[in-house]
């Protein structure tokens, strides 16, 4: 996702927070296997 925003011309693209949003769900094991986590992403549209 970071690279998609960068390719679209966004600046200061960054992951600011991570969340283990699948813990306790039926997909928890799959999420752990593939390293799937929730993230906050910030970016700024170029001027």
């Amino acid at each position, binding site marked *: *996702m970071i690279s998609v925003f960068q390719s*679209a011309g966004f600046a200061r693209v960054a992951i600011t*927070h991570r*969340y283990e949003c699948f813990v306790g*769900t*039926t997909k928890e094991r799959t999420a752990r296997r593939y390293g799937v986590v*929730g993230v906050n992403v*910030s970016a700024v549209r170029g001027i």
Partner: protein
Amino acid sequence: MAITCPVNFDVKSLRKEVQSIYSRVADAPHGEFHFHRGPAYAARMLGYDSAELAALPADVSSSFAGVANPHAIAPLPNGATVVDIGCGAGMDLLLAARRVGPAGRAIGVDMTEAMRQRAAAGAAQCGLHHVDVRAGDATNLPVDTASVDIAISNGVLNLVPEKERAVAEIARILKPGGRVQIGDIVIGEVLDDTALADIDLWTG
């Protein structure tokens, strides 16, 4: 523009499946799903303020199915125009509306009618008259070019196969210098073909 998908899913079928699942979430948020929902989850696992969530209509917060917390990135300034892409039942949208105040605007876009109805009803119930809920999807936003200060979203872009097109739409609607504050999921490794072809992993 041609609709493309990195795997061999029919994009229309995938979109229909996503609509079906999130219609079920709107109708029966306490049902069986492979992702968390609701305000208790949002407060406990994503750091939302439980008092703020308690002040929202239950019909709005119970169908929340986000994966992160875009509000934690930076405050939404008073008077700003914010778009919530895939606003669902409107939890993030109504929080945004409260933060930007009546001098601002909070526009919610969602492709699922049942979710839009909840969001619009919730805004009316809260007296948030600067909320506008519109039908649309992330690849074709019903929003004017260069009219938005901040684009928020939560757990939506991962459901969109045409991510480049969705991000181009975000770039189109933002004013120069406008911000993105998005919650979504990322994958820590390259997926094998079996995982890529698992529609459950695309619709959750």
